[in-house]
């Protein structure tokens, strides 16, 4: 019996889907890993490695009008300088004490602390809500604690901006290129529509160099190291001085420690 028009269309549609399946299978299949190794020791300075990277910010050393860490970071990573604050992109930047630690802030807080300028950045949490919600795995946590951004995979849905309890993430609302003051040719930019944030300078760590903000700070307020290594500088400071973290009660286990 000859097919009806409807039957013909249904069979044609299913055949088209069937013909599309093998390419789909190939796309979904994992690509083979390229031959390689972790340590670029063969090429230059050995990489800095850690069990768990962390940063200590001694905010008492920060000067009120200093933005050295922000400038160094944004220059090293081609972060655009956008005047419209609605669209601004920032990886590390200064905030006032009452904004950074609202729960600890009160009317009679010590005056030096009240006036304190405190740099804030991504906390590279152990239990990051941004990683949990990302639908494509574009943001993911490395074994050494760094919460990474894969700009190639980000679809720009912005759920990670909503999920971050610290406001550490930015999205490129416009093409950032015209707003980059000085292009660093050794590092890519991002394109419009993708999210970016502090990456603990993982590309510098791989070359044996400390993060740009740490090296730029003239007061040595930023200390970076392996918090699991009892002999590291971060551990030495944490052993000697009282430290707090932002919104620690939320359980994200942030790894940027503040000394005030």
């Amino acid at each position: 019996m000859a097919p009806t028009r409807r039957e013909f269309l249904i069979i044609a549609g299913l055949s088209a889907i069937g013909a599309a399946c093998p390419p789909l299978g190939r796309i979904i299949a994992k690509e083979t890993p390229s031959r390689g190794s972790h340590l670029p020791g063969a090429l230059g300075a050995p990489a800095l490695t850690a069990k768990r990277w962390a940063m200590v910010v001694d905010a008492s050393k920060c000067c009120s009008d200093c933005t050295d860490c922000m400038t160094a970071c944004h220059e090293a990573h081609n972060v655009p300088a956008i005047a419209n604050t609605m669209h601004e992109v920032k990886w590390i930047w200064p905030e006032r004490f009452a904004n950074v630690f609202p729960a600890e802030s009160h009317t009679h807080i010590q005056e030096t602390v009240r006036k304190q300028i405190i740099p804030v950045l991504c906390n590279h949490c152990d239990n990051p809500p941004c990683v949990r919600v990302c639908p494509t795995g574009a943001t993911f946590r490395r074994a050494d604690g760094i919460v990474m951004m894969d700009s190639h995979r980000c679809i720009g849905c912005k759920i990670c901006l909503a999920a971050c309890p610290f406001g550490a993430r930015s999205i490129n609302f416009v093409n950032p290129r015209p707003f980059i003051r000085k292009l660093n040719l050794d590092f890519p930019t991002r394109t419009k529509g993708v999210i970016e944030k502090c990456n603990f300078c993982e590309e510098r760590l791989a070359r044996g160099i400390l993060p740009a903000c740490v090296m730029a700070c003239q007061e040595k307020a930023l200390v970076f190291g392996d918090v699991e290594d009892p002999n590291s500088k971060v551990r030495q400071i944490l052993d000697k001085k009282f430290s707090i973290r932002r919104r620690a009660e939320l359980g994200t286990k942030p790894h940027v420690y503040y000394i005030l």
Partner: protein
Amino acid sequence: MKLYSRGIIIAGIVVFLAAITFPFWYDRGKTIAPPAIELDTPAIEKLADKRCVEDTAFMRDNHMKLLASWRESVVRKNIRVYTSKDGRVFEMGLTGNCLKCHENKSRFCDRCHDYAGVKPNCWNCHINPEEVL
């Protein structure tokens, strides 16, 4: 199933087939020169051993797959050292490696890409050295 308006449908199918095979028959017999790529950038001239990561035939066929696997490896696995088929070691990276030698996108990369009619969007992020120099 009855075929209504047989004349129009068959005419339509003929027109469609002619249109969809247009690229194959329009340029029949014409010779079009393959793209001329320029490999004489200052950075390449300075190299003692003027060889790429892999040989030309491999790179021509596979550079996109190589770059894709480098990207997964560096960004997602922190594996940054590549050993080529003949045992040389390189650091993986489009910005940090390839573009350091191939600084002339408009006379190298674009030549083949324009010929093949592809528009890779790598340079949205990976800065084209020609833009800055």
